[in-house]
């Protein structure tokens, strides 16, 4: 914390740290890791999020492009059933609670809290993966029926890939938090895993609206 203060209070144009003018800048007193935007991996994760958000946006644009070319929508089939998609939206939103609990535990180096939080998150992940199967079954169209079917299956499929990878990432990380070897930086990994989890949840909201509500209007 003292280092932090020194960093933020140093005057503009001057370089913080133990300075010998014209000589060495001694950085041995700086922390060996940091959370949030101070962490390198946070930027890497943000890059992945930017790419995947662009993919989702392109797929949504494709959906509406195909709709703009179609005589009617959804191309002679019924819209998807609302129930399972809505249930899963609620589960996903609820998972934000244990996810943020985990994130805060990680940021305060609370190993027991991290273990508990990650186990809860994995239970939520199992729940939304199971419900996702019912979602696919309630789309009322096959992927090879027409272009509408191809678009909704791809949209739901893309998001499901993210649920699966997020589940796998979290599982590996959770096991590591129980078995070790552990060091402070692993808490940063947990915090960044939580950040990615948030992305997967909040990216779902526009996709949910497109898959389940767009064909009704």
């Amino acid at each position, binding site marked *: 914390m003292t280092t*932090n203060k020194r*960093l933020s209070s*140093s005057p503009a*144009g*001057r*370089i*913080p*740290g*133990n*300075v010998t*003018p*014209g*000589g*060495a*800048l*001694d*950085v*041995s*007193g*700086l*922390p*060996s*890791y*940091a*959370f949030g935007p*101070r962490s*390198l991996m946070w*930027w*890497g994760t943000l*890059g992945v999020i930017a*790419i*995947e958000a*662009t*993919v989702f946006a*392109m*797929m949504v644009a*494709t959906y509406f*492009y*195909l709709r703009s*070319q179609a005589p009617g929508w959804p*191309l002679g089939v019924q819209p998807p059933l609302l129930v399972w998609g809505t249930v899963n939206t609620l589960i996903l939103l609820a998972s934000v609670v244990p996810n943020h609990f985990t994130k805060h535990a990680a940021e305060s*180096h609370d190993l027991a809290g991290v273990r508990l939080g990650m186990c809860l998150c994995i239970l939520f992940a199992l729940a939304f993966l199971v419900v996702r199967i019912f979602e696919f079954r309630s789309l009322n169209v096959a*992927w*090879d*029926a*027409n*272009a*509408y*079917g*191809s*678009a909704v299956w*791809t949209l739901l499929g893309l998001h499901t890939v993210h649920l*699966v990878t997020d589940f796998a990432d979290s599982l*590996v990380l959770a096991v*590591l938090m129980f078995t*070790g*070897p552990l*060091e*402070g*930086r692993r808490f940063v990994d947990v915090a960044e895993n939580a950040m990615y989890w948030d992305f997967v949840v909040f990216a779902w909201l526009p996709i949910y609206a497109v898959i389940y509500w767009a064909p009704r209007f």
Partner: protein
Amino acid sequence: MTRRSQASVKRTAPAAGAAALLEQTWRDPPGLVGWLSAINHKSIGRRFIVSAFGFFVAGGLLAATMRLQLARPDNHLVGPDLYNQIFTLHGTTMMFLFAVPVMQAMAVYLVPLMIGARSTAFPRMTAYAFWMYLFGGLMIFAAFLLGMGPDAGWFSYVPLAGPDYGPGKRNDFWAQLITFTEVSGLLISIDIITTVLRLRAPGMTFARIPLFVWAMLVTAFMIIFAMPAVMLGSTMLIMDRLVSTHFFNYAEGGDVLLWQHLFWFFGHPEVYFIFIPGLGFMSAIIATFARRPVFGYPAMVMSIMATSFLAFGLWVHHMFATNVPELGKAFFTAMSMMIAVPTATQIFCWIATLATGRVNFRTPLLFVLGFFFILVIGGLTGLMLGSVPIDLQVHDTYFVVAHLHYVLIGGAVFPLFGAWYYWFPKITGRMMDERLGKWNFWLFFAGFNVAFYPMHHLGLAGMPRRVYTYPADMGWGPLNLLSTVGAVTIAVSVLLFIVNAVRSRRHGAIATDNPWGASSLEWAAASPPAAYNFLAPPVVGGREPLWEASKDVGAPTYVTGLALDVREALATTPLDARPDHRYIFPQPSIWPFVSAVATTIMFIASIFSPWAIVWGSLLVAVPVTAWFWPKRAETEKHLALEKRP
């Protein structure tokens, strides 16, 4: 002269024996397994550059074959089917396996050195991205040699590339190649962005970033927002072909123009992520050989950014011959004209730099001057093609072929060859031969114009692109023969380059650390650089660190306090590059290579069975988990250095 002698970075040794210890810490492990485990950005960068050059030569040989076929009318050296595969693979190779990756490869090698860092931000990911790129490229050439080369052109338009008109596996290989190269390109982009934002030397604020690094940073951002479009498009294409989706099938509500939108939303920015790094090379080389900083640094940076934004508003100008609404086309014409403004701004800044500098005519500068001549012609034909009526007249003719080669070879390949001559001494420790270099340049320059200038006339005379032969009474024979003579001349010049590089690597004059008297930080490292790049990581006090004294009064000149026996480096803040924390980099590992092999198996198998995605994911999950899993011994070392934030 005085400017250069006042080097602000002193290379003072922090402690005796430190160099040997650092070398041992940062070098790649020995042996074959060690070679496959390498993660040092210079090893990966070198392999990446050499592989990309290999694909350039392969793509060039394909082009030479086409030129021999077209040298005279009614020629039967190559049949129509093979010709289709050759032009498709030529374009695909040059765009996806050479032009974009080679720029990223140069960045992987140079960016950490230019910003005073010891590594790229995610060195294992850099290695994985390189292997993915290499395996994807080898796959497409293997398919070609087995007679299964893609044959629908490098932009693979549907319905020609779709299931109805493109039977067999040819276009599936094309679609998967896109997946390979996009995975690689996107990961390298994340790597470069994080490297530039977080690993700059203390004091290298945003206003002091070298222009080449700016160019690569902006390019990386463009790639992140453009490449997903083609990745999604090629996935739709392969799904249409393999699992009967209907994205591009008109009969079931699909749309063929959807493919063109997705492809060119990526494809036009792609031109700029080939071109903008070329602009970065230009700025680095011109400053050094004009012996003064580039005129108008803020204008240069703003121009690069403006170009990158405008590049996303141009894609429909590739689709003027479709039924896109006319008002929409007018917008894209206006944007196409507007992008000339930032490009011209940069050209004027370079001219001002050269006019007010003391110009040193060496080979790298010759290639740069070649850029001015060739790119301006390509830019002028670009303005012509940006107008809808002219485009409709010459669409899909050799006029377009001439234009795109003037832009891409003039805008990117000439600066790139200049860059190779320029940084060769840094990478190998030896100078390239100047006499051979001048032959290389003049043969390339003359051969290029002889090969491509006549194509403008051929296009206006109505010769369509992508025809494998033509009848004699069309009158296209003489200009085609002339063009082939030019192509052979280019081949000779590239051969001279290879001879020069191979000979100079062993027998060239020994290079000093800063043989050209340049200003940026990579020239403060040894030639070739040590595994750790800088014995004492520099602190930067100005835009031209090797030419001027530090502008930060009382500031230190180098960093100490980093571990010697662990890969530890300083992370700085994104905007001001203030010291933030000590960052420990990973050790070399075989797992990125194994993960790339597993991913390759999954991608290729999925061409033959969609279930490969399912079992392939499990196959990939194992090495990726092993890659992530920390080792106990390393964790012990980290704990010894640990200090909580």
